[in-house]
């Protein structure tokens, strides 16, 4: 028992001590920042977006649909008024741009995390899975050295866009576990309803697509007069199987490509047929965390033409270059 525990602890230590190329978490950072821009730009720059903000997150005196006391954090800033909420969203937008280009390290991520948390926690009635996914991603990116490469920080430090100096791998692994938890948990809880099972002929999506709350076109099913019975049943089967078995991607890395390809297809379907905000974009933004080796290879290939021949020669003849050090760096233990 003691020996088994010691072995388990050694495995955990090996995972948390491992290092890898920073391209993976940098790609996640860029994906999350892009999703944030898709979310925040309409809020800040369009009248409809501002109307949504007023209606959802502001007090009734500022155009909200209900009176709000506000969380302690927003009360410190002056309460859930339009001015306060919009300033927080503008701050988050600036932070997202800095996150995207990778400037000032993790500080912009902290700013975005705090600002969005304050705004979105004003009204739990309008919060959903997308906000939770965002909160988790921002927290985990805060733990990662996610501007080590593919960032302006990297450019200012090394005069190159790519830096292959290894960074700790555990934050990337936590991102991977998080997305696995999301899909597996949502799949298992769906089994409560018979509509997702053969008991009711996998009728879930056929029925959900008629809901005016979620469907982009609630009249689609009626208009197609039964043509979508079989496609919707197939989509339901694929969705429930893919979600419930997503944990396999964690233990069998070779299956990740299949899970990712199906995942992208499902999210394209969700985006086309349902109105769930930036949930699909945020989910797919986690996907680079599944492919440490591929990200590294792509980053190395992309960085190769960036270095001028003289620079490479100079580095090779003097100090070991970043490229060389990454290729000779001790390889991390098998990815989770």
């Amino acid at each position, binding site marked *: 028992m003691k020996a088994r525990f010691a072995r388990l602890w050694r495995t*955990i*230590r090996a*995972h*948390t001590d491992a290092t890898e190329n920073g391209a993976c978490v940098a790609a996640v950072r860029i994906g999350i920042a892009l999703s944030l821009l898709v979310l925040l730009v*309409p809020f800040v720059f*369009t*009248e*409809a977006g501002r*109307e*949504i903000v*007023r*209606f*959802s997150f*502001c007090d*009734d*005196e*500022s*155009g909200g*649909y*209900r009176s709000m006391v506000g969380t302690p954090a927003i009360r410190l800033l002056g309460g859930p008024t339009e*001015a306060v909420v919009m300033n927080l969203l503008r701050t988050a937008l600036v932070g997202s741009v800095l996150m995207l280009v990778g400037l000032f390290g993790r500080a912009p991520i902290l700013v975005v995390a705090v600002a969005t*948390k304050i705004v979105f926690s004003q009204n739990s*009635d*309008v919060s*959903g*899975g*997308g906000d*939770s996914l965002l*909160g*988790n991603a921002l*927290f*985990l990116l805060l733990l990662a050295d996610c501007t080590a490469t593919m960032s302006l920080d990297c450019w200012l430090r090394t005069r190159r866009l790519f830096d292959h100096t290894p960074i700790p791998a*555990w934050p990337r692994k*936590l991102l991977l*576990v*998080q997305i696995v*938890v*999301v899909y597996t*948990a949502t799949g298992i*809880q*769906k089994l*409560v*309803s*018979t509509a997702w099972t053969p008991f*009711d002929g996998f*009728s*879930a999506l056929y*029925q*959900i697509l*008629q*809901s*005016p*709350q*979620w469907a982009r*076109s*609630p*009249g689609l*099913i009626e208009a197609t007069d039964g043509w979508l*019975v079989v496609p919707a049943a197939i989509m339901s089967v694929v969705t429930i199987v893919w979600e419930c078995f997503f944990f396999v991607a964690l233990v069998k890395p070779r299956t990740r490509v299949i899970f990712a390809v199906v995942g992208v297809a499902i999210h394209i379907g969700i985006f086309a047929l349902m*109105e769930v905000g930036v949930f699909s974009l945020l989910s797919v933004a986690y996907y680079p965390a599944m492919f440490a080796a591929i990200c590294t290879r792509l980053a190395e290939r992309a960085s190769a033409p960036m270095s001028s021949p003289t620079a490479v020669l100079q580095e090779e003849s003097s100090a070991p270059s970043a490229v060389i050090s990454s290729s000779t760096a001790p390889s991390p233990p098998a990815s989770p």
Partner: protein
Amino acid sequence: MRALLVVLHLTAVISVACPAPVRTMPDSSWKRPAVQEEVLGWTTRLAKIGIRLTPDELQSLSTDIQRQWIDARRAILGPALTYLRVIGATQAWYMFTGPDKEPQRFVLSFTTARDDGGTEAERVFELGYELEHPELLHADFLDDHRVRRVMFQTSWGKSESTFRIVCQALDVRLRKQREDVVDTVCQLVGRPVEHPYRRERKRTDSIAREIAVHKDGSIDEAKDGRPSKRRLPAKKRTPSSSSSPSAVTP
């Protein structure tokens, strides 16, 4: 130390994310057709394996199990829940658990006075369908998932008051754009969804709830086609000039 913290974080995430009821279902939710159909389905299935329960008994048993589970979960996972809430990493992954068999559609209309003394009704929107008065509200506003979520909540028993306050908020918006509005009328129209294998079933609309907000701010309510006995007094309006929502498309 780092390994220990990572293990603790993972334990918190996985244990909290495990599917579990987070609150007992209110009676009004049990009465919904979608839920009743599920209960009936499960009583039939349990009967096939020799467990005979009436729908009421199954509901009662289910509520007891839910309550015990929730209490135990709260006791065990209290610190993990607090930790995840503080770091902003909540783990609520309940998405599209089951289809709503009879979704209620939010419909907004208003009436204007006619020359002959009567009134004329005009529909502004039916949620999910084309906006009929784009000069009064933004289509993007109604299509947004957060706004739809609020409208969706109005149809659930636990938030009956939400329907009233949403209607009042929309009334304020309408009257800012149209001075001739006599009454703002909000309806929740129920319509069973078409089941793929029982497509011949006749589906008819039924008005589950209706609210009329009058010019003086007073409200008349009707439920399941029957008018409410109470008439709510006018609510004090608090228009704010600095932050007035302008829904008019420029």
